[in-house]
């Protein structure tokens, strides 16, 4: 069905992305500080197509808020504005055991963001800063979301945690993206976020952005060279770079201690422990399985649990990496007009073979639904009395597939229809479930033809 096509495409895109991602962390792990690695992995595991979208969306909204922060900082003269949200991070970190890791995660996110924007906008002139200060934008940028979240939720903590989680996911995404041309799309998303971030309706725009970024990502995956993508999105990514620069300045000015901490994190694995001690939080709060709530007394968030359950599913079903049932394709019905009053369904047999149903069953259904009659001609084509358009027939066939082909439990089309004691049962071959389906009944058929013809037919 044509309706399925975008879904398939989306799922496919998701797969591709996944592959890239899973590749990326491995490459990165040795060079990056190891604390970043576990979150990255978990995020990779988490990601089915749907989840991935979700995360992306969040990321985007964060970016938009980041951009907003940049703009705000610009107006207020950076240090003061930036310093306000930053300290909030520290007590929060003390509260959360896993917070340290997340901070480092944020750092990496920042670093990567910067690199990306650098790559995207090669024209950006002031990119001589070392990675450590550049890394700072992430926490700073991310912070402003906290008040927003608090405003939205009465529960500030929940908001913070959620944000952090998304931050981590963000890191993973970024890491995955870095070696690939995907970097451009990300930057592009950031750029679009910049104008969007001005007003508070991040949620509204996040949807848009999601769509956009997805599109762009697919584009990138399709093999458009990084340079080409850059050229296309040059203006936007330049904007993003500008935003980043502003942030950088701002952040450079403020909180030297925090920066040092960040530097440490960038420097090596051991730094994580130090940073954790400095913050007074339990270092290594992150569990081996990426369970950030492990060892802390905070509540786990929905996102974390979702990631966990997907990870487990993936581990237990290595062959089902797609995260969903495989879509099967079916040919469009070929509907021709035989005469002014007859319609021909040309590829009925092929259609039935693909669905693994007997043509008789489908014909019975078609006639019952359309309230007509017909016959099969010499070429195995079905002749239906009455004028029908392809769309109408497709509608009926869709209903047939839903009713008699797809498994209600697992949505798979690998089913067989068996008859037991005058009852039809639909047995799924992929999940083994069985359900009874109602027999096809022809309902009341009103008399539409001429009565004299009817009488003549009855008299014969």
């Amino acid at each position, binding site marked *: 069905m044509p309706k399925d096509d975008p879904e398939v495409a989306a799922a496919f895109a998701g797969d591709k992305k996944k592959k890239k991602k899973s590749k990326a962390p491995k490459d990165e792990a040795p060079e990056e500080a190891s604390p970043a690695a576990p979150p990255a992995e978990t995020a990779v595991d988490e990601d089915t197509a749907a989840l991935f979208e979700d995360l992306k969306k969040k990321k985007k909204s964060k970016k938009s808020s980041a951009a907003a922060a940049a703009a705000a900082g610009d107006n207020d003269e950076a240090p003061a504005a930036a310093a306000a949200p930053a300290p909030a991070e520290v007590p929060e970190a003390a509260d959360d055991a896993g917070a340290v890791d997340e901070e480092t995660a944020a750092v990496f996110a920042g670093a990567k963001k910067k690199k990306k924007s650098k790559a995207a906008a090669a024209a950006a002139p002031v990119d001589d800063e070392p990675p450590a200060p550049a890394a700072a934008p992430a926490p700073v940028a991310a912070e402003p979301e906290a008040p927003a979240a608090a405003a939205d939720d009465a529960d500030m903590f929940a908001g913070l945690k959620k944000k952090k989680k998304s931050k981590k996911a963000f890191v993973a995404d970024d890491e995955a993206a870095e070696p690939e041309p995907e970097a451009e799309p990300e930057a592009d998303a950031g750029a679009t976020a910049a104008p969007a971030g001005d007003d508070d309706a991040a949620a509204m725009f996040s949807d848009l952005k999601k769509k956009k970024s997805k599109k762009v990502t697919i584009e990138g995956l399709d093999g458009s060279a990084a340079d080409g993508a850059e050229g296309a999105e040059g203006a936007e990514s330049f904007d993003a770079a500008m935003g980043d620069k502003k942030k950088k300045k701002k952040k450079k000015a403020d909180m030297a201690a925090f920066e040092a901490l960040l530097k440490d994190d960038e420097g090596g694995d051991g730094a994580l422990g130090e940073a954790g001690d400095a913050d007074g939080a339990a270092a290594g709060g992150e569990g081996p399985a990426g369970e950030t709530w492990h060892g802390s007394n905070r509540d786990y968030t929905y996102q974390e649990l979702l990631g966990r359950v997907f990870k487990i599913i993936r581990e237990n079903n290595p062959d089902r990496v797609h995260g969903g049932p495989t879509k099967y394709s079916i040919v469009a019905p070929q509907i021709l007009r035989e005469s002014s009053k007859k319609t021909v369904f040309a590829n009925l047999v092929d259609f039935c073979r693909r669905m693994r149903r007997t043509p008789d069953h489908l014909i019975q259904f078609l006639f019952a639904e*359309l*309230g*007509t009659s017909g016959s099969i001609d010499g070429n195995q084509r079905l002749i239906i009395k009455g004028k029908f358009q392809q769309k*109408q027939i497709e*509608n009926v066939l869709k209903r047939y597939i839903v009713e008699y082909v797809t498994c209600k439990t697992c949505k798979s089309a690998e089913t067989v229809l068996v008859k037991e004691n005058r009852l039809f049962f639909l047995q799924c071959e992929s999940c083994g479930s069985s359900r009874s389906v109602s027999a096809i009944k022809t309902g009341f*058929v*009103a008399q539409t033809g001429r009565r004299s013809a009817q009488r003549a037919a009855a008299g014969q």
Partner: protein
Amino acid sequence: MSESIQNLSKYDPFADTGEDSELSVEGYIHIRVQQRNGRKTLTTLQGLPADLDQKRLLKAFKKDFACNGNIVEDEEMGHVIQLQGDQRIKIQTFLITEGIATKDKIKIHGF
């Protein structure tokens, strides 16, 4: 005690009675559309609860949908309301808003 069990075995409520009485048993209301000549269509409504006054319902239908219609007596299906034109969606919304049936009890057929 054993007697009652014997009684139970005498009458099996789930036994196949031989007659296809599923239509009334299911309690579904079927709305179908049929082609007439040209681009004209006919909508049939079948399986309404017996306690409803079909005539009054038909009157309401005719007035609301601005179409003609009549009641057909069918030996198998009982009373069937016929309306001119494709009124499927209108009938469904009418039945739901009037509280005659719920959405899961209404089945719309046709193209």
